[in-house]
């Protein structure tokens, strides 16, 4: 046996013979034994559950009415079947208005469930027409389950609309076969994704990742300091061993102890999950190496401290401090990122002459304030909203943008999108209007420039300048907003807080240019071809060219694309070429005249293109969600198109782009810095770098550098979530038509790399310390 293997083997034997190990194993066994009877059992239940009563007041009112001989016969039958006490309570409610709790109603209705004589053919005349009920009604000697099913159906019929009908499928949480709770209204199949995606990672990370990890750190803290007992260390050092390998063997020996514990517990949990919950998830077993790895991160600190101070208490204290520091830095960084990196990031740029107008992720429209070197918010500080546009209508000198209204948790159905219209006549006239207008003395971002405008058609996702107005592309058609007509249209006057507010009527201002049923469904992307004077749409896997005919858009050509139907697509149209960029696929180049696929832009590879731009000279810019910019330009010499990734500052961190009419490319990087590149992709003198605010300065120069060098053991949680997720559990994907919504697609194995490097650094420090130390 090699000497180092002998040390590892010795550590294993030491672990096996240690009393602490057996105490811990006994503790884990107790936990598993206590957990084992906890199970989920599936079955049928027709009992009324709290959540199934959608309108308790109506039910109570109807029962009360039944008590005084009113209401339907079925309700009267139910009233007669409920217990006396509840009947009295109902009467009390009528007389004195005393409230009855929903829970009590549930109990009362459930007493009815067991009554064998609830059914009455006169009271429920339609019941026998239902096959399911007919069988139950006609059956003699019904089992209690059948009786409950029948009575439940009768209850559902007696209180339509107030009682949600039960599917009968239910799952109980049981302990040793005993049902303690009301059944959960799900099947095991429905609960499984929740257990695997949420519950298991939570239990794993909190139970094992935090509690067991702390126990492990305390127990192993003495292993390295013990090595320094003079009597044993000197003998080890006198053997032909390298000090570094001796230290590393001892370190791994400590990990063996923890590995034994973690393996025991996790294998126990694996069998528990399989045998009791029916979830045989291999990912649980994958957690064994991951937790050992997480422990190795902390133990590398503990071991180094043990080497320096040779005191187990200091090891535990310093490791706990390290834990705290990692946690604090991680939290501070993610909090500051939430405030400083996400919302202020510019998502749209519109250049009017040399003046940029930008929209950020927060939904704010901002102008460059050159005096203070800041982005100045105009037209209302409204947080958490999505901006569509902005677009500039030079004829009217108007800025248009759509802004969604914030509706918490998506309650209240489809979102409405308000059209905002700001009149900025100075911008259209002079190429550089500056921040102050000499004519009016008004700032560009002055709120008073806002004019009233009607809501955009529902589900509008893009605005395209068109004639003297714009086209609003929505999921149910293309609408034309004609500014002239809107101005003439009668405006509805309403009074708000004593002020008259004019609201133009939407139906009159938007003219639908497409057929009522245009056959296109989400996700849709839209572009405009100047050379064809046609609108190009990609919907699902179809590419459609629509030509304007009078005041209608008619389908000219259509082509089937070989892309996944549900893929969110971005589109860039350059003359007669369309670049179709399906999410996470290779962009395609399509000839719009022949409607043929020219080629796949394989040089770009599979990419998530979130923004496109097309210059007047035919170049197209594609920006990926990773912040990479690609320029697709026609190569005249070879009569083909080439895609290249220009080397520009901010490449890899670009949040948005815009081609202006003079073919300059406006590039936003590093949250809110804008560079303007000439048509040769060279930086021009025009750039907009806002001053750093104090919190940004602290983030850039203190928090972020700290975070980068700081190990991130907590990030291993992401890897654990990744291995526990079950690819078979397809959770309905959120319909993401907006790729600007930050999509966190982190590499699940990245924490292994970063923490692995940390472990190596700590161990190298330990080896160096041991090498130079006099012992």
């Amino acid at each position: 046996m090699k000497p180092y293997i002998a040390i590892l083997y010795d550590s294993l034997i030491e672990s096996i013979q240690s009393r602490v190990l057996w105490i811990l194993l006994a503790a884990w066994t107790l936990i598993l034994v206590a957990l084992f009877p906890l199970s989920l059992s599936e079955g049928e239940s027709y009992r009324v559950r709290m959540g199934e009563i959608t309108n308790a007041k109506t039910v109570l009112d109807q029962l009360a009415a039944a008590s005084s001989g009113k209401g339907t016969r079925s309700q009267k039958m139910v009233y007669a079947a409920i217990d006396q006490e509840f009947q009295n309570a109902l009467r009390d409610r009528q007389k004195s208005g005393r409230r009855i709790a929903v829970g009590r109603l549930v109990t009362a209705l459930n007493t009815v469930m067991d009554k064998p004589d609830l059914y009455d053919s006169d009271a429920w005349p339609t019941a026998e027409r239902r096959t399911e009920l007919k069988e139950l009604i006609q059956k003699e000697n019904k089992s209690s389950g059948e009786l409950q099913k029948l009575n439940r159906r009768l209850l559902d019929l007696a209180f339509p609309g107030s009682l949600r009908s039960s599917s009968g499928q239910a799952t109980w949480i049981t302990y040793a076969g005993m049902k303690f709770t009301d059944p959960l209204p799900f099947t095991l199949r429905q609960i499984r994704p929740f257990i695997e995606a949420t519950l298991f990672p939570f239990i794993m990370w909190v139970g094992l990742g935090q509690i067991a990890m702390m126990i492990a750190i305390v127990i192993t803290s003495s292993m390295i300091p013990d090595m320094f007992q003079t009597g044993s260390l000197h003998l080890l050092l006198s053997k032909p061993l390298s000090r570094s390998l001796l230290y590393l063997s001892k370190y791994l020996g400590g990990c063996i102890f923890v590995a034994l514990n973690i393996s025991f517990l996790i294998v126990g949990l694996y069998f528990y999950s399989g045998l009791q919950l029916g979830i045989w998830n291999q990912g649980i077993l994958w957690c064994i190496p991951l937790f050992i790895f997480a422990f190795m991160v902390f133990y590398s600190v503990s071991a180094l401290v043990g080497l320096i101070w040779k005191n187990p208490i200091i090891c535990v204290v310093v490791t706990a401090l390290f834990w705290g520091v990692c946690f604090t830095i991680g939290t501070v960084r993610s909090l500051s990122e939430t405030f400083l990196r996400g919302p202020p990031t510019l998502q749209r740029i519109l250049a009017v002459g040399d003046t940029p107008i930008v929209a950020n992720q927060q939904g704010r429209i901002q102008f460059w304030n050159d005096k203070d070197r800041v982005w100045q918010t105009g037209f209302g500080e409204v947080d958490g909203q999505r901006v569509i546009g902005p677009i500039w209508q030079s004829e009217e000198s108007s800025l248009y943008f759509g802004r969604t209204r914030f509706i918490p948790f998506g309650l209240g159905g489809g979102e409405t999108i308000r059209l905002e219209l700001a009149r900025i006549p100075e911008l259209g006239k002079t190429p550089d209007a500056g921040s102050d207008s000499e004519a009016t003395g008004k700032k560009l971002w002055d709120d008073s420039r806002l004019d009233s405008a009607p809501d955009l058609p529902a589900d509008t996702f893009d605005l395209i300048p068109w004639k003297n107005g714009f086209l609003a592309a929505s999921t149910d058609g293309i609408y034309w907003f004609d500014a002239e007509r809107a101005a003439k249209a009668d405006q509805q006057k309403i009074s708000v807080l004593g002020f008259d507010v004019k609201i133009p009527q939407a139906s009159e201002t938007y003219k639908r240019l497409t057929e009522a049923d245009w056959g296109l469904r989400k996700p849709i992307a839209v572009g405009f071809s100047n050379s064809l004077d046609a609108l190009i749409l990609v919907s699902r896997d179809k590419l459609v060219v629509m030509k304007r005919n009078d005041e209608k858009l008619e389908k000219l050509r259509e082509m089937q694309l070989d892309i996944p139907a549900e893929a969110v697509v971005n589109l860039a149209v350059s003359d007669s070429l369309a670049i179709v960029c399906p999410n996470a696929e290779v962009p395609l180049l399509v000839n719009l005249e022949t409607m043929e696929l020219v080629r796949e832009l394989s040089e770009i590879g599979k990419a998530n293109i979130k923004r496109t731009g097309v210059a007047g000279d035919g170049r197209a810019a594609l920006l990926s969600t990773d912040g990479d910019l690609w320029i697709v330009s026609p190569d005249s010499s070879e009569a083909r198109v080439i895609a290249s990734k220009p080397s520009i500052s901010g490449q890899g961190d670009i949040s948005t782009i815009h081609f202006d009419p003079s073919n300059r490319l406006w590039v936003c990087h590093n949250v809110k810095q804008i560079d303007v590149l000439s048509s040769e992709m060279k930086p021009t003198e025009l750039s907009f770098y806002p001053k750093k605010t104090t919190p940004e300065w602290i983030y850039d120069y203190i928090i972020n550098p700290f975070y980068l060098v700081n190990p991130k053991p907590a990030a291993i949680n992401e890897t654990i979530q990744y291995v526990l997720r079950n690819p078979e559990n397809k959770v309905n994907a959120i319909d993401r038509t907006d790729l600007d919504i930050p999509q966190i697609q982190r590499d699940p194995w990245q924490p292994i790399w970063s923490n692995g490097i940390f472990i190596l650094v700590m161990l190298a420090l330990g080896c160096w310390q041991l090498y130079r130390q006099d012992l």
Partner: protein
Amino acid sequence: MRPPLAAPLAIDVQNLSKTYREGLLFPRVHPALKGVSLQVGQGEVFGLLGPNGAGKTTLIKVLLGILHPSRGSAQVLQLPAGSKGARRKIGYLPENLIFPRHHTGRSALYFYGRLSEMTDAEIRKREAELFELVSLSGRQHEAVRRYSKGMRQRLGLAQAMLHDPDLLILDEPTDGLDPMGRSQIRDVLDRLKKRGKTVFLNSHILQEVELICDRVAIMALGQLRAIGTIDELVRQHTDDSRSSLKIEVIGNTQSIERILAEVPNLPTAVPHSVSPIVTEGGPEALTRIGIASIDQPGADAVVDCLRSHQISILRLERARPSLEQVFMNMVNTANGDAASRDPYPSR
């Protein structure tokens, strides 16, 4: 100070110094070795003597590579001290050896054998013989935590000998052992000596060193004070012409003192009474005379004088100077030298 025979050197230390630095902000330097040079030939049993804190263990640690020397060089078996190659050929028994608690005698032997790059088969071949040698046969399956200190020490010796090293470095091998245990260890060392192994022994038990070692070195306050065979040291560092004289005579102390006063030029004689012994004629006083240093004519004069007064001499002992005397002389001289200096200069 080369070993007497022109044998190849097992240990060659040249001008070795080691200074400890303590404290981070205000470091204190403590010189543990000051320019030590010594050579040990192969096949020698060499004893390193010195009071606590003399630097003996520091020297051993340097030889094993546990400490890096501040100055000077050390070679072990013609290899740089501390190198892997050198350590392969060394068997080491540390002072206050602690075995991990989970071991039995046998598993500990296997563990340390594996660390010495031995195969299990090789260990198996040697284990019975070694347990026999250190008198642990039949006890090797017991947990070491139940071993007495002597047993642990003997097990330590067994592991040091397991890989049949060319050089054994033993740091206080008989420390804490009963006379029986010491004798066993001495036997083991004798056998090793016969097999031509080099033993470097560090001890403060002088009698033991005197019995086992071919040559000794005496260290005090980090310096080598003397080196040589025991006879050489005694000859060099004591006055051989004068030695102590012990005489036991019958008679009371006062009368003996009176008689001794007649001896011309007698150095400090310290006669004193001891408990009376019983003779046929009844109890009689017994007196023991001790004279620390006296030459032969002086001793003759004392005996002549006592006999001339009909004093019966029961016992007479003319003691030879011992290693202990040499040691005490060396250490006292060193302490005397150091008394005028600050032994811990701070920087």
